[in-house]
């Protein structure tokens, strides 16, 4: 590389118009940061793709085998759950991306540039949460709708006890479950982001995220079932996923109560992240 201009152009002497840091500007900056990394685009795509793929694949399998399935299997088949199952994988992708949105700044040293530009610090956390949350919801909602409608279209025409097994979006609780799934994914992403800000380390953030959402629930199954039934509805993932259930399953919080509890956990984690960010050396 050669130096093309050794002299300083006169423009250096011109003061750029006096500006100030605002929350809106920091959000714009975070938008640029989010989409200027290739890994972000890949991970977002992976989250969407799994949501849709894992709706279509089970629908195809069940539809093709419907005529030979036992009456018991047909009776217990849940056409809603099977079309929203991809959420389980998508939450891992989005949670990991949430962690990376902030831990990636610490691992690379970018955080020093970021906080030198915004030394009040908290606007950075709010901007990251706002931008990442909005982007996640804006992608998760269409993904959930596509997943639901494609799965139901595949199941359509198959019946059990005289009823078509395919659900309609206007069936009771169905629209709430589909839209709620997108809300759940958004909260999972924000939960990951808060953990990333607390741990400032990608590996610690992602493993804690996965531990809380995936590892703790099965661990509780070793407890006496009365204990497990009393505790597990309040776990973050169980509480949050109550929004995607229809009917009135046992040992589950109400859909909005559960989602609100998960939102509460996320808000608490975010508050802890804010307190640490404000206080710690970089």
């Amino acid at each position, binding site marked *: *590389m*050669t*130096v*093309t*201009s*050794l*002299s*300083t*152009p006169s*423009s*250096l*002497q*011109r*003061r*750029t118009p*006096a*500006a*100030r*840091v*605002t929350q809106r*500007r*920091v959000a*714009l*900056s*975070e938008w*640029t*940061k989010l989409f*200027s*990394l*290739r*890994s972000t685009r890949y991970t977002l795509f992976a989250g969407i793709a799994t949501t849709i793929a894992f709706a279509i694949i089970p629908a195809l399998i069940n539809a093709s085998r419907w005529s030979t399935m036992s009456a018991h299997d047909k009776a217990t088949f849940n056409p809603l759950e099977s079309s929203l199952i991809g959420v389980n994988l998508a939450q891992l992708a989005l949670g990991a991306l949430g962690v990376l949105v902030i831990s*990636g*700044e610490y691992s*690379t*040293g*970018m*955080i*020093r*540039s970021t*906080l*030198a*530009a*915004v*030394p*009040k*610090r908290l606007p950075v956390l709010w901007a990251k949460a706002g931008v990442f949350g909005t982007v996640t919801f804006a992608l998760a909602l269409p993904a959930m709708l596509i997943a639901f409608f494609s799965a139901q279209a595949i199941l359509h025409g198959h019946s059990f006890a005289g009823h078509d097994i395919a659900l309609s979006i206007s069936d009771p609780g169905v629209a709430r479950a589909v839209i709620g799934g997108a809300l759940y994914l958004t909260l999972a992403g924000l939960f990951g982001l808060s953990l990333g800000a607390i741990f400032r380390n990608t590996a610690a953030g992602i493993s804690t995220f996965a531990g809380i959402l995936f590892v703790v629930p099965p661990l509780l199954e070793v407890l006496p079932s009365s204990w497990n039934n009393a505790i597990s509805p309040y776990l973050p993932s169980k509480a949050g996923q109550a929004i995607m259930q229809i009917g009135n399953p046992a040992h589950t919080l109400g859909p909005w109560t559960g989602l609100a509890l998960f939102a509460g956990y996320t808000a608490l984690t975010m508050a802890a992240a804010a307190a640490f960010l404000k206080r710690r*050396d*970089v």
Partner: protein
Amino acid sequence: MIEARNLTKRYGDTTAVDDLTFKVRPGIVTGFLGPNGSGKSTTMRMILGLDAPSAGDVTVNGKHYADQSAPLHEVGALLEARSIHPGRSAYSHLLALAQTHGIPRSRVTELIELVGLEAVERKRAGQFSLGMGQRLGIAAALLGDPEVVMLDEPVNGLDPDGIRWIRDLMKQLAAEGRTVFLSSHLMSEMALTADHLIVIGRGRLIADLSVDEFIRRHSRSIVRVRSPNATELAALFASPHVSIDALEPGLIEVEGLTAPEIGEWAAAKGFVLHELAPQQASLEEAFMSMTRDDVEYHATASIPETEKVEAIAA
């Protein structure tokens, strides 16, 4: 203007910065000189509010950095450690920083041209050489057209062309009335660039003086004298203020007398001189002797202070 008052930073038992008080004035280039691990980078991080002081205080243009409404217009900084995401292009990196202050895209393009990165502006910064990374860091520092420019070891990794470019740039920025504060562990670099020096060792202030003063005070004047009468001359010059080194038969080095003084004395006694040559002791030696007592890890096998500090900070 940067003002530090009793600035102190402790990490556990280690005191990285110890009761520093100094002012960095506008209109000149101030060098921040000290051996590696002496606390220069920690001091700079405290100026930017990245690290909180354990005691004392530092302000920029009369305010704490975090209280500035447009910090990038007040201070432009290049920190020693890389502060760039390697997956992001140079252009996106600068744009994201610019956007926090509403600085227009045209300014980003201008800076990329200034530092000579046009050809690689869309490349991921992780593929940059050390020198290119340094240029990108300098572009980021100048983005907000800041009153204070603070660079930590800016010439690291630059080729000779780049080093001269930095020197000229710093001098120009100072001539425009800005405060220019740059750190180095090399006195020779400072002698070429800086007007004023703040010297620290083990986190403590050792000297705060102009470069001219430093050179006057610390460069010893040694005169090399070659003469068949070297032994007699040595006896003649002997005094508490003069030290004499006999290098080989017929060759001595005299410290404490000027070349004219030696020549005149020799002429008065009728001694023949074959060589009378003033020797300039290097500034690097002067700086090293100044900080020798303050360097924590001469030849011992202990961990250098920087690593300790980083280990604790991490």
